[in-house]
């Protein structure tokens, strides 16, 4: 499964189109950046409610394939800019984190 495949989930919308060909092999949920940094797996789809620019640094450094911002939160302007620079995909969803995770599971992740 790649980041592009996740677009088939109709509740997910693209905020930043990064490298869509990156593989997605697992998921992670978390809003404490250091915990995500310590424990998220590479190739994760990472669900969070954080929307400020540091999520891009965490995703880039940790090797997360895509960020999914839940609960209808929108990424800050500089988050969008930095994600574009770093080629990181950001999806948004109105779903809460648990429901978003369920979608990923139902989708086969």
């Amino acid at each position, binding site marked *: 499964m790649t980041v592009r495949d996740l677009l088939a989930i109709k509740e997910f919308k693209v905020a930043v189109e990064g490298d869509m060909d990156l593989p997605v092999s697992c998921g992670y949920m978390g*809003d*404490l*950046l*250091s*915990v995500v*940094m*310590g424990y998220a797996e*590479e190739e994760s789809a990472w669900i*969070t409610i*954080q929307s*400020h*620019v*540091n*999520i891009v*640094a*965490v995703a*880039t*450094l*940790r*090797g997360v394939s895509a960020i999914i911002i839940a609960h209808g939160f929108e990424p800050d302007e*500089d988050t969008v800019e930095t994600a574009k620079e*770093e080629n990181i995909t950001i999806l948004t969803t109105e779903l809460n984190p648990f429901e978003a995770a369920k979608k990923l599971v139902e989708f086969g992740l």
Partner: protein
Amino acid sequence: MTFDYIVDPTEPERAGRASTKFKGVLKELGVSPKVIRALSIAMYEGEINMVIHANGGNIHCEVDADKIRVIMKDSGPGIPELDKAMKPGWSTASTQARELGFGAGMGLPNIKKWSDNLVVETEVGVGTTLTMEFNLT
């Protein structure tokens, strides 16, 4: 080869810049992805600590044939209870820092976990220097 970075405390949301830059340098040097990942995670945590606790600082990186050394030096408040700070989950971060998703009490534990060697020199009222090493062989 050496590389130096300054961590600017006035833009806490920009923390991670030095780690991201150095990560790019290591990629160009052909360092293995495994080492790059470990190093950038540890260095990022150090950078965050500098921003949320220590009013910024300086980072000096040395790339040798067999190891990379990252020295992160600040003139912050120092760490009064280092043994506690090394334990996952223990944190003195401000509410503001926590709202940004920092201050989970995972900074130093993550650095210890991802580096091959870590030395913490700290003195209350003087500052903290972290020296972390990553083996290339």
